[in-house]
């Protein structure tokens, strides 16, 4: 996505700070998959995969993959002590019942009121929503990790999304390489600026007003 691994890890590390003891957390692909590497050892967190795993662990070593133990993206994982398997209906039951405390995912755009657009590029890519709508709509906290701007340098944090929405008014927190925004009833609040970026740079590269 144009971000070096160091920057991606910084974003992931900041996201990891949002995770509290005992939480159930669903991670999307991309930067979110780096989050577990940044968790302190004394935190008990259960990672949830919507195909039916609670308690995902790190990736297996090469050659130790189990074809019957994969995450929702189809890639091999392991499980931790206390893990369980369930069918997909129950897995999404956890999400809709509000038992998944947090989902950390990537996005194409986020609007100032927390609209999420991360699933479709009309005329280009229509992959289907998978489990994204349910996660966005029903996870107790939705955190978006993404580049601050797209490949053309255009802001991805915008007044109104130009792409079709995955879910409206669902995002709680946005973490980019430049900083951290909270979505509130009064719009966006810039909470943190990451060095070496300046307030002015953030302002220039953000497509909507925000408080600070």
């Amino acid at each position: 996505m144009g971000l070096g691994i160091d920057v991606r890890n910084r974003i992931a590390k900041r996201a990891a700070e949002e995770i509290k003891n005992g939480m159930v957390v669903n991670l999307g692909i991309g930067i979110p998959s780096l989050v577990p590497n940044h968790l302190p050892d004394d935190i008990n967190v259960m990672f949830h995969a919507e195909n039916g795993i609670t308690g995902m662990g790190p990736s297996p070593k090469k050659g130790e993959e189990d074809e019957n133990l994969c995450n929702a993206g189809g890639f091999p994982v392991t499980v931790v002590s206390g893990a369980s398997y369930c069918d997909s209906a129950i897995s999404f039951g956890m999400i809709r019942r509000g038992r998944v405390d947090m989902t950390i995912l990537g996005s194409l755009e986020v609007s100032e009121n927390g609209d999420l657009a991360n699933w479709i590029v009309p005329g280009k890519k229509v992959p289907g929503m998978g489990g994204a709508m349910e996660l966005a709509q029903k996870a107790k906290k939705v955190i978006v990790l993404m580049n601050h701007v797209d490949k053309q340098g255009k802001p991805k944090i915008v007044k109104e999304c130009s792409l079709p929405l995955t879910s409206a008014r669902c995002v709680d927190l946005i973490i980019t390489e430049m900083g951290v925004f909270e979505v509130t009833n009064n719009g966006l609040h810039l909470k943190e600026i990451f060095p070496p970026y300046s307030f002015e740079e953030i302002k220039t590269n953000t497509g909507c007003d925000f408080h600070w």
Partner: protein
Amino acid sequence: MENAFNKIITIEQAMENFHDGMTIIFGGFGGIGSPPTIIDGLLEKGVKELTLIGNDTGFPHIGIGKIVSEGRAVKIIASHIGSNPVAGQLMTDGKLEVEFSPQGILAERIRAGGVGLGAILSDIGMDNEMVAGGKQRMLVEGKEYLVETALTGDVSIIFAKKADPYGNLIYDKSARNTNPLVAMAGNITIAEVEEIVSLGNLKPDEITTPGVFVDYIVPSKGVNWTWAWE
């Protein structure tokens, strides 16, 4: 036993979650698989004006029947009350409101609440006033159905054989019955368990209720009623 998730609590601590006028969903079928220690705790605490949701009213001195017989409930949603004549008498006397739901539909309504759906569409008992009375109907692909609303409650109380500290549960034989469904339906879920084992002691494949749904685990003092067949 390690308690890394702070879910393992005493029956006294569990009782802090209950108060008059609340809705309790209970696991069990004819008393089997109902949590005896929690039920006794509720009796002792004296909570009243309860709305109960579960398969049946047990027997007068078995399962949830003990709470019903003591007049602690003002309403129950169940599939039958036949094995508890006290419940029938309270209903006749106007002291207990009873909403009957066909057994499997009741189970699905509790499950629907547990997995965050709004309702299910059923064709059971459509011509029966006791089932269909006052319910919305809907035509789907040319066939008519009743709209059976999802059920949730303030607290779910369930009974399991084993739990680990995360609240992963396995059940014993037919004492499973409605428990895995009820486990999902409460805003708070309290599991009474016969045995607590270490994390990692339950095989991930054999866990019936993932601990995600379980807020608290209470060790059982065992069944303290005499079964109807004894």
